[in-house]
């Protein structure tokens, strides 16, 4: 194409002169964009703008969006695993209770056991705690997965039992006592005023992400040229690169527009020997560590789902379990590993949650399973199995957290919040059922 710098709209118009006028749908198809994902982005924008006006202009502020991003992280992390569990025609109802049990266990470990052995504030404590969270979560998930896959108890029942068992274990570890505070390095995993990348680091991550987007597009193009496949239109590639980079840099800008609270900024100024200026010092927060972890998990899980055999096998089991068996896939072990992966992600989410709260309570993670399942389903995962994407689920988690944050800003009572979340979950499944019925016709 001769025009390389034109924005998508103009190039499209040029094409209309040459051929029949392309519809928006066919343009998106040729760009290979998923209509459903775009629809979800649209829904998110509608929710955000709606809440912004209904809350008197407090929703779309750096402060609210920053807090929303931190709160969304644990649900987003777990939803990436829930997608795979649901795709494999299973469900995990135990993730909230597992989060409680794992969170409580690592809280006790770092607050009451490790300081006695290693000494208070030892630099290895946070690493051991995170490692323990991964191992414990993985083992609990594996245990449930083995029962589902090899004993043949439906996952609904195994994890419903798990919901009770692990909640009981959470209480039993400390007989209901709340454990606090956490190791000071460990706390950074939860975000907070120090648990962020800061201005320069955030921009660096943003620029790296933009380079990544362009690199992936170019790699895809090179592969297609190598095998002589149809290429994406140039306008689409440029549009994806521009819109994607703009979204990334915009998000970084928002995160950098939220500043450290004055007292913390004062401490920082003191430490670095900067004189406290007259109007106060504005130190940007930047991307918080929980968000960074969630993004890292999303990328890793997308890679596993799309580029590794394990992911491919999960999808094949969801599409046709019999075909998967006849293809020589060890479907049982694949299912067990799926639950183990889910468990490890619960471990990550537990570490982030405990770090953010700086405490573990016996109610830790209550109802998280509903948010996680809702995120996956809103994100396009079909309960019939076989269909679902990880970025979709993360978007779904953002929708769920936006709903909750918006309702908090509007001073909606907690019971009513639950009612809304419950209704949204049912509507999301109803939309999915309707969508699939139409697609089948």
């Amino acid at each position: 194409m001769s025009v390389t710098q034109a924005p998508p709209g103009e190039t499209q118009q040029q094409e209309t002169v040459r051929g029949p006028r392309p519809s928006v749908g066919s343009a998106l198809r040729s760009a290979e964009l998923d209509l459903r994902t775009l629809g979800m982005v649209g829904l998110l924008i509608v929710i955000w703008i709606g809440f912004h006006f209904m809350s008197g202009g407090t929703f779309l502020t750096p402060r609210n969006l920053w807090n929303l991003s931190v709160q969304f992280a644990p649900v987003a992390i777990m939803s990436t695993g829930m997608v795979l569990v649901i795709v494999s025609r299973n469900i995990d109802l135990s993730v909230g209770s597992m989060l409680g049990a794992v969170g409580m266990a690592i809280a006790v470990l770092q607050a009451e056991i490790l300081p006695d052995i290693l000494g208070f504030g030892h630099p290895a404590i946070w690493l051991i705690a995170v490692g323990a969270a991964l191992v414990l979560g993985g083992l609990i998930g594996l245990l449930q997965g083995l029962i589902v896959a090899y004993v043949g108890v439906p996952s609904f029942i195994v994890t419903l039992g798990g919901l009770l068992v692990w909640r009981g274990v959470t209480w039993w570890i400390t007989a209901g006592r709340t454990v606090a505070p956490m190791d000071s390095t460990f706390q950074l995993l939860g975000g907070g005023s120090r648990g962020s990348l800061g201005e320069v680091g955030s921009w660096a991550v943003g620029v790296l992400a933009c380079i990544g987007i362009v690199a992936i597009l170019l790699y895809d193009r090179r592969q297609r040229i190598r095998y002589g496949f149809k290429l994406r239109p140039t306008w689409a590639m440029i549009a994806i690169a521009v819109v994607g980079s703009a979204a990334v840099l915009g998000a970084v800008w928002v995160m950098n527009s939220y500043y450290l609270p004055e007292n913390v900024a004062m401490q920082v100024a003191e430490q670095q020997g900067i004189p406290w200026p007259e109007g106060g010092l504005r130190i940007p927060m930047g991307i918080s560590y929980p968000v960074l972890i969630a993004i890292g998990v999303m990328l890793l899980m997308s890679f596993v789902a799309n580029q590794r055999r394990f992911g491919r096998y999960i999808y094949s089991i969801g599409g046709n379990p019999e075909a998967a068996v006849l293809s020589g896939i060890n479907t049982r072990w694949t299912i067990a590993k799926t639950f183990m992966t889910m468990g490890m992600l619960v471990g990550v989410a537990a570490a982030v949650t405990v770090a953010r709260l700086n405490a573990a309570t016996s109610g830790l993670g209550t109802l998280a399973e509903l948010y996680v399942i809702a995120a996956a389903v809103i994100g396009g995962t079909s309960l019939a199995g076989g269909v679902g994407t990880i970025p979709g689920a993360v978007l779904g988690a953002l929708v769920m957290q936006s709903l909750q944050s918006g309702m908090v800003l509007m001073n909606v009572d907690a019971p009513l919040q639950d009612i809304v979340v419950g209704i949204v979950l049912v509507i999301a499944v109803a939309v999915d059922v309707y969508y699939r019925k139409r697609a089948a016709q």
Partner: protein
Amino acid sequence: MSDRTPLVDMRNIHVSYGGVHAVEDVSIDLYPGEVLALVGGNGAGKSTLIKTLSGAVVPDSGEIHINGERVEITNPRDAKQYGIETIYQTLALAENLDTPGNMFLGRELTTRFGNLDDSAMEDAARKVMKRLNPKFENFKIPVARLSGGQRQAIAIARAVHFNARILIMDEPTAALGPAETEQVANLIRSLKSEGIGIILISHDIHDVFDLADRISVMLQGRLVGTVNKDDVTMDEVLAMIIIGKMPGEVTQDELEELRG
């Protein structure tokens, strides 16, 4: 034929499900470049018998020899290692995966880091499908959205791509129109000329006589017998299928009755 080593020699195969004998003491063999038709009514045990060869069912007793060597086939992977490919009546496709995804399911091509090489798989799929269904273009959409003939072609392409030496086809034309059926018949002839041994399960007696060299008939889990196609008439095969009598044993009256 007896002076050559059979490609497949299944001896005294028994399979029972919960006390019901699905396959009872059945022995069949298959030679290179031969089409062996396996026929019989519903519930005769044909599918169960071939599943012991494709690894989907493990026999209670009996021996399987491939090229004269005794082998143990306990799962589909074992069968594929011996060059046995199966096209199931249900096609066994994962509806949500695309064409290359299905063709390479369980045997994905990977890069040297162990990542799925989707481009290489698509390229290979395009090459095989060019031979089977030249007009096919929808490589990137879930196979659920393809027609019956296209899905059939994918199931066949999967077997062809992996250089089957032994091909099992369970009702390969049941879901196809006349043109597509003819396409499959031509494919069978061309594979046969390459020296591949084919076991063909079919309800269509005309297909069987058109394509097979020998015909094995099963009734109620037992083998009635195996005959050379050129030595028998369609009526005699029907008599084997329905009343379980070999061509020599069946009376003229019985044949009359079968004709109605």
